[in-house]
């Protein structure tokens, strides 16, 4: 029996986009809270751009990804979350 990878792929991209949307909203909120600080506003604009770049990159990769092993998809969710956290870290 072949594995229905389409199901896992859709699940993965849904989880990924949810997490990205959450980060987008956080950046937007912070831009409003720190609206009087031009440095923070500029940084958040830059980070929003970077997040969008990453999002586009990953959507393409998820679309291209092929595997017959369901574990590959569950593993991927964790590593994507880690990457997203690193990318959106305020210290950098």
């Amino acid at each position: 029996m072949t594995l229905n990878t389409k199901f896992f792929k859709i699940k993965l991209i849904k989880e990924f986009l949810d997490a990205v949307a959450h980060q987008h909203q956080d950046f937007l909120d912070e831009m409003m809270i720190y609206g009087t600080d031009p440095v923070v506003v500029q940084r958040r604009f830059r980070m929003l751009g970077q997040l969008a770049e990453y999002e586009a990159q990953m959507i393409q990769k998820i679309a291209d990804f092929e595997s017959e092993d369901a574990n590959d998809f569950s593993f991927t969710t964790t590593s994507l979350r880690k990457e997203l956290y690193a990318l959106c870290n305020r210290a950098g």
Partner: protein
Amino acid sequence: MLSAIVLDKPTLLNYNDDYFGKILSWRNLKFEQIRRLYKIHGFDQYNNLVDINTIFSTTPWGMPRDRTQTIYSPLKFKINRPWQIPTIELSLKKCIELRVQQILSQNKKINICWSGGQDSTALLTGFLKHTNDLSQLRVLYSPFSQYEHPEYLNFLKKFSGLELVDISGDVYLNVQFDGIFVTGDGGDEFMASIDESFIEKFGIEKLHAPWADLFYQHIPNDNFIEFCQHYFALSGKEINTVLEARWWFYVSCKNQQIWANSLEMFFDYPNFSPDMVIPFYDCAEFENFIYWNLDQIIPGPAYCDWKRILRQYCYEFDGLEDWYLNKQKTSSQQLVYYRYKKIILKNQRFIYLLDDGTRIATKNLPLLSQIEFDNTHGTTLDYLFNDPR
């Protein structure tokens, strides 16, 4: 037992631990993950080194890479400088001077990665003291460097001809600097890598207690203690205290991996090679100093006494008293995050980095499947693994 090196093939400089467990499973190697470390069945001596690491650190990571080349390791790592027992003694001033002159003699532009911490400030001081033509130097810093050492940037501005570049914003992503890069890597490991979590857990006085007691508390196994005695003897020094054992373990097993991580920042450079990043303290000169002066690692009873000798070296040159008296170790995380971001945004993710600079990747990282890995690399990388015995 010396692991056989295949001479015509490059060995391993670094691996990405996000994928490492997966690769081990694909190779049918039984393993046990302890935090971010792996114990691998069939490599008992190597597993003992992992045990030592878990005693010394609450958050251990990265595989031990044995510089004495006596431990049979699961992977064929490149060892930059196999361990040799130092035979001459140098003072701190002399060893820094020699190291600076050695790097200057390459006649290339020197980019100094200054984080504001103790290691990078001491090496920068060394360069300022011993460089005739300051235009050969370029100091790369970030807002966190100023946060760690607030007065130092103004001090640096007094030197005409010295190029200062803030790499925050998009600079670290898009600008390619010429020349070589000098980092403070090795400073922690050669100074026993005393992390605050260890001090909080045991207190400073534990550093001067016998190592065997501490080890036996964690792992009550006589074979393990015997292994440690044999391994510590390879240092050529009498190892009695926890501090001495720590120093030896970090010098012999852990000093290469942070430098290997620093390399990741430069994957997109057209002439990328591991030689372009120089870990300042990972050198025979500094070893010739610290080997004979382990009492200088932490001469006082407080955590901020750690590396005081490096701060003193800086203070004698710059006279900035507040930093000298009060500075203590903090992890400079900002550059780490720059590195992560650059790897992600420039799509430079990797599974392995080899010592000829080859980056092993597949097109869909971080979505990695065995089929994809096999299609790209087949069995060509099997030689990097040793078989369990």
